């Protein structure tokens, strides 16, 4: 116990400026060394063959993707951001010809002036996942639905509509809100970075009985 007491004040003694500088320099040197090692490891890593072959096929067909496909590890391909018009032909090609026919999910990202929509296309035979990033300006956030090609995407596209306020054309008609509640204000999109919950009028989304519109439709049929 006495030893501890004796040591405690000594540890609190402030560092001199020279000591501080020395520590900062040491930390910076260590960081630079780590980064250099990571870069060297990255460069020496072999590029997986299957994915490289896939990327080459895609680039042969779509030259604008030259040097814009990253293969950080086995089973993963990422594109840099492409334009909206470029997506559909690319998707049709990889789905029909290269087996990326399963849409794992669709992610939206708010990056300041732009929205990015990332389609995670999976080939479930060889386990590769091709992540296609599509960019669009925020003031013209409109994309085309791909539900006519893969029916399992309706929920993912509806998330883009509700949470980001991206307009998705040609979705199946008559779908309710998802995942936000009925009666949620049309101009509030929670996953936008500038969304501020404190500025929202919460009284409009308070719980109330949901009208069963479909029940009425059934009555007309019957």
């Amino acid at each position, binding site marked *: 116990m006495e030893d501890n007491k004796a040591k405690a004040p000594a540890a609190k003694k402030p560092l001199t400026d020279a000591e501080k500088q020395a520590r900062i320099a040491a930390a910076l040197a260590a960081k630079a060394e780590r980064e250099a090692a990571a870069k060297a490891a990255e460069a020496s890593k072999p590029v997986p063959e299957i994915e490289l072959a896939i990327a080459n096929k895609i680039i042969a067909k779509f030259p604008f993707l030259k040097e814009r496909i990253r293969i950080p590890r086995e089973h993963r391909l990422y594109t840099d951001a492409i334009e909206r018009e470029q997506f559909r032909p690319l998707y049709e090609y990889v789905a029909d010809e290269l087996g990326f026919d399963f849409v794992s999910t669709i992610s939206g990202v708010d990056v300041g002036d732009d929205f990015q929509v990332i389609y995670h296309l999976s080939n479930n*035979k060889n*386990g590769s996942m091709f992540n296609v990033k599509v960019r669009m300006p925020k003031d013209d956030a409109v994309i085309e639905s791909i539900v006519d090609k893969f029916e399992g995407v309706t929920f993912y596209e509806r998330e883009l509509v509700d949470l980001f306020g991206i307009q998705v054309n040609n979705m199946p008609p008559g779908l309710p809100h998802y995942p936000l509640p009925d009666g949620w204000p049309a101009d509030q999109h929670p996953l936008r970075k500038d969304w501020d919950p404190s500025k929202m009028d919460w009284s409009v989304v308070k719980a109330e009985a949901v009208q069963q519109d479909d029940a009425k439709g059934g009555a007309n049929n019957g």
Partner: protein
Amino acid sequence: MGRVVVPIGTQHPALKEPASFILTLEGEKVVSAKAKLGYNHRGIEKACENRSYIQSLYIVERVCGICSHAHSTVYCEAVEELAGIEIPKRAKYLRTVVCELERLHSHLLWLGVAAHEIGFDTFFMYVWRDREKVMDILENFCGNRVNYGINTLGGVRRDLTPEIIEDIKNLCKLMDERLKIYTDLAMGDATLAARLAKVGRLSKETAIQYGAVGPVARASGVAIDVRVNDPFAAYDEVKANIVVDDNCDVFGRVLVRVLEMVDSVRMLRFMMDNIPDGTISVKVPRKIPAGEVAHRVEAPRGEDAYFLASNGTEKPERIRMRAPTEANWHAIAHMLEGDYLADSPIIIAAIDPCYSCTDRAIQINDLNTGKQDILNWQQLKQYSINWHRENNGIDFAKLKIK
């Protein structure tokens, strides 16, 4: 014939996947089914953006109560990939051990629920008794029964002790014995087959088209399993077998899950004998380098896909989560169409949503007479059991398990 619209489901505040189905009936047959979701959207993706990577881990683990380990595994592996960190091999094996224990308990839970839904409560009791053995081991090993808290960024938090290894080996012995009984029952019992075969049909083409995942897809003959196609954790060394079945109905989904449990036991036994020595975690920096990672794992219910974007700070820029049930909801409306109302409980239960989520009021609205009946899930289940007893002579009360 007049059509009757049956809305099933509304909000249930306590549970994770409350969903609503609006069934239109013609007589007793379902002619159209619509799914409505989002009643319990908790804003987890947004919440994670305001928290550090390690804080987000605890939120991510709470996305799902049953496959919490799948969510924390996919999240940890995505962060580790962004940080450029390779975790120790022993940690990968320990994650895999919990993955398989979780699959065992989740499938046993589902088997019990399915038995309960069709009125086979004896079987339900047997299965859930065995599930407790798995839960005990999870609790001994991880410290928790459901949100295990075993994963951390850079590895796992607890190591296997010789006692727990012995426990798991004993569990494997017990499971061999029990799963043999369940396999014989699932494959050979005429009553069970009569109740489940040709119910909730989903053809291979439709399963692919609607993007079904996990046991639902595999029971329709689609050979997808992330453990095999795109190995994570230690699945590159601990080889899983894809269990595929061509029945394309609820009966097939039972078979697939029972046989997957047999495979899980085999893998657990392999891991107990072959787990490498070494440390169980490495340090992960607080700031994660900028970058993007898409990752997926095989949860008990199917592919669990995450997308993680980092901006180089201590907090993630964006986490996108897609749990397996979200992929399977697309197919369920299709499965309900053309089947009897009496089969709807087992069809909905067969995709393995959180069972308690389906425990809610049902309003039957007869549009011809304007008469309204409100049934709860218990009553609908009882209706289903009585309907099959009267129409098909199926009565599980007469069935004995050896």
